[in-house]
């Protein structure tokens, strides 16, 4: 598939090392924090931002992200609200325009209820570049949804794990654009398994496959060491739970966010 213009593909065309992608949950800690955190991350110089669409039953997520989802839902967050919060983020009408590539991450049911086409259209309108929908499996995506995503220029980022078979990784590589999300270990988000030898073996194995797509490593990346290690084996890494914990403890000010990003990048 060829996409005319997409901030994610543009980014990887110009930068291929130590990319930092930071996840946060929309509407967390407070409903109106979405734009504050997004701007804070851009100002702190992250390369990509992943905005979580909260869901009541996030099976691939650990406690930290679950709680942020619950809190955001209690705050009244919904897809409709999220799109209205992001509505003018790409234009200069309300402060500094947001230029950092944006991904939406979440579960398929709220998206189905919103309407797949409507969702893609809204993403295009507000300037979302890609999505990560862990419980939308590859074959169903290809059978039913891929043409709609393509029509609106929205990338769908797929995950691979240490258990993913080589043939399937090849297929995912074939069908992906933007980047491949490498789940670091058999785990849900927020795991504290640390970096083991078996992880390194897995990272090396994937490296040796010479995939077409760049790769970011996520799950369990929570400090400078893990970010560094991931960057040795891939084009960069994704931080989620650690940032959510930071927001809950240290707040959403630009300084707080900058301080967090600096400790990761160091």
């Amino acid at each position: 598939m060829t996409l005319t213009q997409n901030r994610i593909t543009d980014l990887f065309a110009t930068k291929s090392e130590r990319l930092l992608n930071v996840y946060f949950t929309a509407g967390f800690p407070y409903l109106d924090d979405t734009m504050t955190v997004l701007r804070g991350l851009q100002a702190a110089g992250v390369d990509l931002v992943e905005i979580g669409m909260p869901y009541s039953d996030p099976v691939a997520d650990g406690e930290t992200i679950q709680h942020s989802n619950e809190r955001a839902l209690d705050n009244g967050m919904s897809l409709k609200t999220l799109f209205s919060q992001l509505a003018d983020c790409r234009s200069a009408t309300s402060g500094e325009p947001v230029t950092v590539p944006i991904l939406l991450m979440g579960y398929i049911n709220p998206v189905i209820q919103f309407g797949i086409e409507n969702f893609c259209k809204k993403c295009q309108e507000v300037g979302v570049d890609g999505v990560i929908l862990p419980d939308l499996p590859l074959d169903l995506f290809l059978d039913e949804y891929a043409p709609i995503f393509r029509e609106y220029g929205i990338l769908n980022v797929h995950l691979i794990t240490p258990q993913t078979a080589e043939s399937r990784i090849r297929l995912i590589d074939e069908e992906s654009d933007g980047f491949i999300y490498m789940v670091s270990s058999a785990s849900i988000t927020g795991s504290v398994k640390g970096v083991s030898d078996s992880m390194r073996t897995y990272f090396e194995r994937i490296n040796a496959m010479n995939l077409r797509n760049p790769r970011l490593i996520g799950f369990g990346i929570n400090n400078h060491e893990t970010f560094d290690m991931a960057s040795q084996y891939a084009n960069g890494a994704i931080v989620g739970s650690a940032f959510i914990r930071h927001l809950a403890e240290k707040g959403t000010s630009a300084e707080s966010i900058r301080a967090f990003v600096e400790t990761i990048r160091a």
Partner: protein
Amino acid sequence: MIYDTNLLIGHIRERSLPPLQTIISIVVVGELEAFSLKADWGAQKIDFMRYLIDRYPIGDIEFDIIPVYAQLDAFSQGKLKTAPLNYSARNMGKNDLWIAATALYLDMELHTTDNDFDRTGGPASPNVRIALSKALIIMQTTLEPQTSFEVTNKGFYGHFGGAFIPEMLYPNVEELRQNYLSIIADPAFQAEFWQLLEDYVGRPTPLFLAKRLSAKLGATIYLKREDLCHTGAHKINNTIGQILVAQRLGKKRIVAETGAGQHGVATATVCALMGLECIVYMGSIDMERQKPNVDRMRMLGATVVPATSGSQTLKDATNEAMRHWINNPVDTHYIIGSVVGPHPYPDMVARFQSVISGEVRKQLFAKTGSSNPDYVVACVGGGSNAAGAFYHYLNEPSVRLVAAEAAGQGVTSGHSAATTALGKPGVLHGSRTILMQTEDGQVIEPYSISAGLDYPGIGPLHAHLFESGRGDFYAITDDEALEAGFELSKLEGIIPALESAHALAALAKMNLQPDDVVVVCLSGRGDKDLSTYSKFL
């Protein structure tokens, strides 16, 4: 009915079984074996083919079929003097003629998609004509799209089902999907499964004519006594099957979710039996309201882990069990407790529970001379006892399938679990189904007095039964269920589980007629619910 080779090849491809009344002609067996060689089928496919052939009566070529064959052969070539063809003659395949002759001789419908049989239509001797026109009619009707209640190889029942799972679960689920049918079809598996059902679970469970209840309701009511299974509910039919599958997949640990604790107890039981480690997730609220079952699980050696996320009930226990499986993908098998979850779970669980209707057919035949009742009634939480009770009747349109859902304090009360009344299509726990959700697609926490029905979705087969109109769905309130539970206790001396009491309560709403024969699946016994019942004594 006689099934032609092409239809059976379709079933083998999809790893599904034709209807129970099918007879397979010996000629078709030959064609299948030949086809498998020519198409170079893999060992698993051939195993499934033989398993399928084994399950149905074989229509042999008997001496008496020969005159029928001879007539057909001559007729199809326009050379039968007594019945000339009024269109051009054609040489039909000889095998097709033998298959048609077998159908004709047995006076059975021939189901085929092969239009070769088309040519055999037209005037002929009355005998020949009947069978041939039958063959023709059936051929045309099978070509029309028909509602199927069998799962497709991608795991769909109509619009519902599939495997909506994160990539982290893909290898586990795929391993299961690729192996479950061949594991189940293996004769050694079958032998062990049936032996355990008989000697350990106590099957077959009785089909009991409830005379006083029948008199009260003005129809003939039979109770399928799943409450007499070891551990007190139908849940163990599934856990026995799945533990044997888990062993054959080389798994060392079992994880499960439970609501009322019945599935947790049934899982802990088979883990004790087989010496496997067992971890059961249970909502912390459910742990309080079903304390005796928590103690039973612990006594059986299981670790019971409270699910403290979300609403702390069954749906959250399911989330936690799935998370556990993601974290332990290689050595752990997840025993789902109902016909829910990603494909192949709904199909696998339904197959294990299908023993219920398999027995009902035989028992009802022995008692009434017909294996088909007018109604089969079961409660639906996720829908496993209902799937088992419906299974062998899915393709028998004369048998109405009745599902009782929990309306809680009333469908519109805001405290309900009546999924089909309140839900919309969406994705829950790995399958597309009907679920209770907000406009934004957030899952709504259900409520029912019965913890086993307290689930916001239903299995995809039931969503399909609902959407296609094959099933009738009734919403039963807490009060109606309680009343039915007390009534059965007094009338028949059987204290039903609160879940099963919902099925009993549906009877009063069904407008039963005096000659109706009804089978109610009494999914479990009421001991676990005594603390709830005792509040209303």
